[in-house]
């Protein structure tokens, strides 16, 4: 090996050691909207974890403990709902259900979609065709309607909602990963790696997956925002966890829809919680997209 190729090699490995993720992370940390998004998500996560500590009341006390639909004041800063339960307490506990169900639903979709996409994109041929026709079928039914149908079939409950939303989201991830893998297979650097004698496994793990995964990560973060909205939507339609004592933001909104005139705060506070958490994931998702693919930055 000549001195010059050795120098090129060490130079290349130095740049590689800083790494895609390191670069992306430092770009993300300089992106103010993304940091705001991260902060909003962190805020709700802390609310969810600390709910039993910071909530002033029991989320669903047995027997009526306060006046129903009590306007916000110093004892109940967000008022009380139709059962006389403290709205602020239920928003805090609701963060546990709504965020967990939304995020886990996306994880289900991501896992299912990644498996389908990787098998289809990796195997090609007949397997690819069959799997893609299956995603076509799922994609033919608009998202929330598919989730509604699945919940109607599986019955109500948190696991059922996670599965329903996860199944509804999986074709999107499958398509995305398969598309990236197919495009990457023909890319110059994969061909270069192949011509240098790298094993197929090494090409897949070291070269293709890191690049194919970045759009998935971005899409999953953005999907978390829509999943929180969709989960709340299912709750709103009466397809939520099914137990009135469980605080879930969407179901809290349904409970209050008859009282728009007398108790508008029952719409406002859960609504704001959904909107702010969705904004958080949307900002973070956009920031991740710019951080992971700097060519997009204008």
């Amino acid at each position, binding site marked *: 090996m000549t001195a010059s190729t050795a120098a090129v090699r060490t130079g290349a490995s130095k740049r590689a050691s800083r790494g895609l993720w390191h670069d992306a992370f430092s770009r993300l940390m300089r992106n103010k909207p993304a940091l705001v998004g991260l902060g909003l998500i962190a805020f709700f996560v802390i609310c969810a974890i600390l709910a039993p500590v910071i909530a002033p009341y029991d989320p669903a006390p047995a027997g009526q403990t306060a006046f129903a639909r009590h306007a916000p004041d110093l004892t109940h800063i967000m008022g009380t709902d139709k059962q006389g339960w403290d709205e602020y307490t239920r928003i805090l506990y609701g963060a546990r259900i709504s965020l967990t169900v939304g995020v886990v639903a996306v994880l289900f979709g991501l896992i299912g979609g990644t498996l389908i996409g990787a098998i289809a994109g990796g195997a090609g041929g007949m397997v690819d065709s069959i799997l893609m026709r299956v995603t076509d079928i799922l994609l*033919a*039914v608009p998202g929330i309607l598919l989730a509604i149908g699945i919940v109607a*079939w599986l019955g109500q409950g948190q696991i059922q909602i996670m599965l329903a939303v996860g199944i509804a989201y999986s074709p999107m991830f499958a398509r995305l990963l398969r598309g990236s893998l197919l495009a990457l297979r023909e890319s110059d650097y994969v061909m270069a790696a192949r011509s240098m004698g790298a094993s197929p496994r090494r090409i897949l793990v070291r070269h293709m997956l890191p690049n194919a995964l970045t759009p998935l990560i971005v899409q999953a973060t953005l999907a978390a925002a829509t999943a929180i909205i969709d989960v709340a939507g299912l709750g709103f339609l009466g397809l939520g966890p099914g137990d009135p004592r469980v605080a879930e933001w969407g179901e809290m909104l349904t409970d209050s829809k008859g009282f728009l005139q007398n108790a508008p705060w029952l719409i406002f506070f859960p609504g704001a919680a959904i909107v702010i958490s969705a904004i958080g994931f949307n900002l973070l998702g956009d920031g991740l997209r710019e951080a992971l693919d700097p060519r997009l930055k204008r």
Partner: protein
Amino acid sequence: MLRFIVRRVLGAVPVLLGLSIILFLFLRLLPGGGPAEAILGQHATPELVAQINHTQGFDQPLYVQYFAYLGRLLHGDLGSSVIDGRSVVDTFLVRFPGTIELTIGALIFAVGIGIPLGRLAARHPNSWIDGIVTVISLFGISIPVFVLGYSMAFVFSVELHWLPQVGQLDPRLDIPVVTNFSVIDAILSGNWHIVDALAHLILPSIALGSIPLAVITRITRAAVIDVSNEDYVRTARAKGLTDSRVNDRHIMRNAWLPVTTVIGLQVGQLLAGAVLTETVFTWNGVGSWVVKSIQDHDFIVVQSLILIFAVIFLTVNLIVDVGYAFLNPRIRYS
């Protein structure tokens, strides 16, 4: 072009066949006993179950049932509601016009505001104007239709009394139903009742149109910025053409391509969004019917409605693809 269309239509056939199998199994494999038990719920008695099993053919082998189901579908028979006994097709024809009106209203709102907003932001990238537009579109995609719907209903109906909160027409006006399109029926009845019909459309259209508004704004902004950086735009400016001429003839003509595609794709999403919007505004459309049928455990209707939505969705996507091929001579599908 004709070959492309035929190929796309044929391509939809296996998708619909696959969906028909899934929907068939959806009804036959409902948890909690057989389909008759699931439909009857707490009212299930052995006699009623036997009766439904017999009339609906649930007592025959699965493959016989599936081909019978497929045969009925091909004859346009989508079954009947077990609640009111009316055929799905009949009720659909009565309710679909309401959903079409709502979809058109939402599209007019989303396109009418989204494109100017996107162009405005693109003309001043990274300025405070761009910032405001970005925040508006961020809100649009982050606010659920039911939250926006109720918030607007509270402000404009409950507090200000400017706009009606529920329904398509004021029942006191007693407008005869002719077409089931409330706006057209209102026009036919004369007496300026169209004002009432349009007033009922405003809040639901804005609520339903908020997500498409955000998406269209973003795409328009990105497309206009993209095209503005093209060489031919610089050439046009260098030739000394006026700003408005460059904008209309060079930038927008090319920026329309991605924008029209996205608008087309939003139509399918609007139909799904109608499920929530119609429930918020007690709108007599197909969306609120889906919800009602699920609450009533009227699974035959749910099954048929999912199929109908898929057919509409696939048709709209096909029209978008064909329209795109028409608009963009650079892409000819082989």
